[in-house]
């Protein structure tokens, strides 16, 4: 017995210490790195509304120039400033993410709560509908919406948001059902809490921590989906430079001017890593007990 204790202590004298500290440290690193990455993109997106180094349609920069003090990221094959386009791309990415996640959250939580609270055949009907909606590929749905409404940023956001809402709805339904079965809901109803108040006081706060991470993942997914749609020409039309379209345009000149292809790709990756890390950190903050109902 004592030998075991001794060797354990020798091998790792501060094991207790590190074990108790590790979760907290990881949380703050996630929050910090994610927040910084995501924050930079967000600031760039906001700056693009205030001022741009060049007009997006300014073609006086010379074709396919490498990065220079004047054109920080070089120019494209029409002589337009790439840094300007990257900034506009950041704005479109943020807009897509926020818009799609807002649609997914509002619609998804609403449908999920109705299914969970109503129960019986309404629940069965909604659940079957959700299963069908989830089985439908996002990009296919997006193409249908584009065919219906024409290629635009709004169509892309709507389609991506709709696809995401099905997943959020099912998650909300499952979690809310579990919360509603808890004794504290019964106890709260025992003191006369009505349905709406019950949702606001107990159901939403207990469902919310479960939704943060999926919603954040959807933010990243939405940015990628929009880039994919733009890449095949179904996203926001020119002259709005989405990162996806920049990738597509840079494809033919990638050997001559690689920065035009590398930079939008790097920004996409940075955005998604940033939001995912941020989500991880936020989850730990939102659930102080550390044991979300899953």
């Amino acid at each position: 017995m004592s030998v075991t204790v001794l060797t354990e202590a020798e091998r790792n004298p501060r094991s207790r210490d590190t074990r108790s500290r590790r979760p907290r440290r990881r949380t703050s690193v996630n929050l910090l790195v994610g927040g910084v990455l995501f924050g930079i993109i967000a600031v760039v997106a906001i700056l693009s509304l205030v001022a741009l180094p060049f007009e997006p349609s300014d073609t006086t920069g010379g074709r396919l120039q490498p990065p220079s003090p004047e054109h920080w990221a070089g120019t494209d094959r029409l002589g337009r400033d790439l840094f300007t386009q990257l900034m506009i791309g950041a704005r479109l990415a943020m807009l897509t993410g926020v818009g799609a996640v807002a649609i997914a959250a509002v619609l998804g939580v609403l449908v999920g709560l109705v299914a969970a609270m109503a129960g019986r055949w309404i629940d069965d009907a909604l659940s079957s509908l959700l299963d069908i909606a989830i089985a439908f590929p996002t990009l296919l749905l997006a193409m249908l919406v584009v065919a219906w409404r024409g290629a635009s940023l709004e169509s892309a956001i709507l389609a991506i948001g709709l696809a995401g809402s099905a997943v959020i709805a099912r998650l909300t339904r499952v979690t809310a059902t579990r919360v509603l079965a808890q004794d504290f809901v019964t106890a709260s109803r025992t003191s006369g809490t009505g349905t709406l108040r019950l949702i606001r006081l107990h159901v939403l706060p207990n469902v919310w921590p479960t939704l943060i991470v999926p919603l954040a993942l959807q933010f990243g997914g939405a940015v990628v989906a929009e880039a994919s749609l733009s890449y095949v020409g179904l996203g926001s039309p020119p002259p709005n430079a989405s990162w996806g379209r920049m990738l597509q345009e840079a494809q033919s000149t990638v050997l001559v001017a690689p920065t035009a292809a590398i930079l939008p790709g790097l920004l996409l990756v940075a955005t998604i890593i940033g939001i995912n890390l941020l989500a991880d950190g936020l989850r730990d903050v939102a659930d102080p007990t550390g044991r979300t109902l899953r």
Partner: protein
Amino acid sequence: MSAMLEIENLSVHLDGPDGRRLVDDVSFDLADGQRLGVIGESGSGKSLTALAVLGLLGHPLSASGSIRLSLGDGDTVDTVSAPGRRLDGVRGRTVGAVFQEPLASLDPLMRIGAQLAWPLRRHRGFRADALRRAVLDALAEVQLPEPERIARSLIHEVSGGQRQRVAIALALAAEPRLLIADEPTTALDVTVQAGVLELLQAAVENRGMSLVFISHDLPVVAGIADRVVVMRGGRVVEIGDTRRILTAPREEYTRTLVGASRALDDLLPARPAGSDGPTSGGTE
């Protein structure tokens, strides 16, 4: 003396084609200010009866028969047939409940003070500073130390006995006329049990409340109830004054119950006189 609660031919059954009956033709009543013990083994239907009184049997359960709750102004409400919205107004003010597992019966993500504030606000109209003071008073009334700290805590940050005291404070907050305690001490340490029981007894006496005390523990029920209902398999086996049930049980099943707990008592020199001191754990 008027009736606080009258249950007549209550049946609870599962929805669906086979519709199994879980509570079968149960009738008993409870006078104003009386303390009624309901005793029975797991699955005897005692908790379902309590939920039916609260009008909280959800899908897939439904009730038939009638449960008349007195509202105190001469009016009654039938919790079997009344619509949900009417019951929202009745629960809390007329009837409150304490459940078996205190950790589960409080919201894990809401500070204790905030949970207590809601019934105090809704049923007794406290606002702002008065509300804050009412929350602290409610915590002090259930003899919780440092009400300020407890009010700021989450439920997993306080000990088991303290949790049940918070749950009792929550049930008492709206000043109900009837308190339903469903196995309130079963999940607690024996030493903590005695304190919680004393507290319940004091609260019932001070406020002149009626009490339905549900348990499978005969000695506990005998200590707190004037009258006892013995249930088994969803039916009432026997009803009578506590003393009579203990000394001269009429039914075979009751005799077994009494015999079993007497046999246990004989083995022990005396019941441990417990106190509900601050227990360790969870507060780190």
